[in-house]
């Protein structure tokens, strides 16, 4: 469905010389490689999380895939179209949400924007009625449709933005940071919606985000890029198994105490009756640590947690020196 091969994009960035005055006359130009030889392919019906630190090239890739940006070199074919060459026929197949921008008309009710989009995409009346009905139900928009966009909260507006991107029932949905700035309730609503349209309408979704819980909730596959290069492409569990080097054990005792040394375990924190331990999985494993712990008769409770996915990603960034 989406085929990307050896895609590169370089930007010319003007840099200021030593003095502000001399840069009036000549400028130093630096070439920034936003994308360097990226290749991947995405099949119909997938939800792919496209992640990476700020400035990694996520948005650049989304812009190229939506036909806004022309790459310096490389191939990109989406449903048989090269986005920047046949822009108009390509964009009929895709829906795009840029979390930091708005596509709705600011001063008129949401429904007016939707109606205009219907005409822009030449959606038939019956089709429009059906897809609007679905979007209104799933995103809970019924009481928002007559409100001018400027009066909506960010969470309400984002739900409308996503609906706006889906009015023409695209086969592919690109979401560039769709949950940025949203509260927990709105985030979950957006996630559930993405899952629903993926399951029911078979929409292929590519989303970028910095919120790892988005990825955990949605994506069965992640592509990690950094400094314009692809670092990892595969499923999330595999990433966890590869990069998960530590587990965290919280132990509650019946009375304040200190814990004797267990090999491969460091005590992160001891506070009253509670100790937090970090287990290095390279040196030992969970069963043997548990065995050592249960020798103590005064234990009240034990909980074992994985390292949060955020920390894994940070480790991964560090491993690649991003």
């Amino acid at each position, binding site marked *: 469905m989406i085929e990307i091969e050896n895609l590169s994009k370089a*930007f010319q960035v003007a840099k200021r010389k030593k003095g502000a005055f001399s840069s009036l006359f000549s400028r130093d130009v630096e070439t920034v490689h936003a994308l360097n030889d990226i290749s991947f392919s995405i099949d119909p019906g997938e939800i792919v999380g496209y992640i990476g630190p*700020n400035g990694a090239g*996520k*948005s650049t890739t989304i*812009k190229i895939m*939506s*036909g*806004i*940006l*022309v790459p310096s070199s490389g191939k990109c074919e989406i449903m048989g179209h090269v986005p920047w060459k046949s*822009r*108009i*026929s390509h*964009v*009929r197949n*895709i829906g*795009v949400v*840029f979390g*930091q*921008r*708005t*596509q709705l*008309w*600011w*001063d*008129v009710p949401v429904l*007016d*924007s939707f*109606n*205009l989009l219907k*005409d*822009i*995409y*030449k959606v038939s009346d019956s089709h429009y009625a059906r897809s609007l009905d679905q979007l209104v139900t799933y995103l809970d928009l019924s009481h928002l449709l007559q409100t001018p966009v400027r009066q909506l909260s960010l969470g309400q507006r984002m739900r409308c933005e996503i609906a706006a991107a889906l009015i023409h029932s695209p086969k592919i949905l690109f979401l*560039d*940071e769709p949950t940025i700035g949203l509260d927990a309730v709105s985030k979950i609503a957006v996630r559930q919606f993405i899952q629903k349209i993926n399951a029911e309408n078979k929409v292929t979704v590519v989303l970028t985000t910095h919120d790892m819980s988005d990825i955990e909730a949605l994506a069965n596959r992640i592509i990690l890029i950094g400094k314009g290069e692809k670092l990892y492409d595969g499923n999330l569990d595999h990433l966890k198994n590869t990069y998960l080097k530590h587990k965290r054990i919280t132990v509650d005792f019946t009375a304040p105490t200190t814990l004797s040394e267990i090999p491969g375990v460091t005590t992160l924190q001891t506070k009253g009756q509670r100790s937090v331990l970090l287990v290095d999985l390279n040196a030992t494993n969970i069963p043997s640590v548990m065995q050592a712990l249960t020798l103590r008769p005064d234990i009240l409770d034990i909980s074992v947690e994985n390292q949060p996915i955020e920390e894994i990603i940070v480790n991964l960034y560090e491993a690649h020196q991003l």
Partner: protein
Amino acid sequence: MKLYFSLFKIRVYHGLQYRVAALAGMATQFFWGAIYIMIFMAFYGENDSVNGFTLSQLISYVWLQQAFLAFVALWVRDNELFEMIRSGNIAYELCRPVNIYIFWYAKLLAQRISNAALRFMPILLVAFLIPEPYKLSLPVSLDAFVLFVITLLLGVILNVIISMFIYISVFVTLSPTGSLLLFSVVGEFLSGLVIPLPLMPDWLRTVVEILPFRYVADFPLRIYSGNIPVGEAILSVGMQLFWIVALGLLGNYLMQKSLKHLVVQGG
């Protein structure tokens, strides 16, 4: 076609949200109209006509100019489009299955039509009712009136084509201030909105008549009062059409070219 109709509709709703602005606009236009007329009356003094342009023709010219300001003025602009280019929201426009030149053209034309539709009737009505010599005269003939309407509409079509160049230039400069100032000051003068063409010195008039700007304002407004006879005017309509086609094609070409080089910055 349906799309452009919807675009027009949403634009009119948008315009209706600013009723006070429309009222204020009308008051301003009366004020300017009156000022212009008084200045030109002082300038005419005892003369009834200068370079074949009679005072009553001039007064009609000024009132029509004020009533259809949204059609003839170059400085009418859509800040939303500038903001879109500046902020990068244009990314969304590029995700639509439409030719951006035509799409924006339709937006701008709709803006001018909705703007004028709200204002021209009351201004014309009052201008007809005020006493001589300040009043707007009736058109010289039915032919002239029909031709006035046609050329005025062709004029606004050309005007939007010319103003599209301002938006295209913003792709390069990222700031509308310079192009807007240049276009509104120079363009306004060249289209005869500051000094009507018949009052210009001959050499200047020759230059201005070669340029496209006068076909936006000067040409239709002078047909109404009979200063340009119908027979002569019909020939010039060809010139008006020529500019529409030539500048339209050039604008579309430049737009597509600058879109190829466009970089939407930021995440």
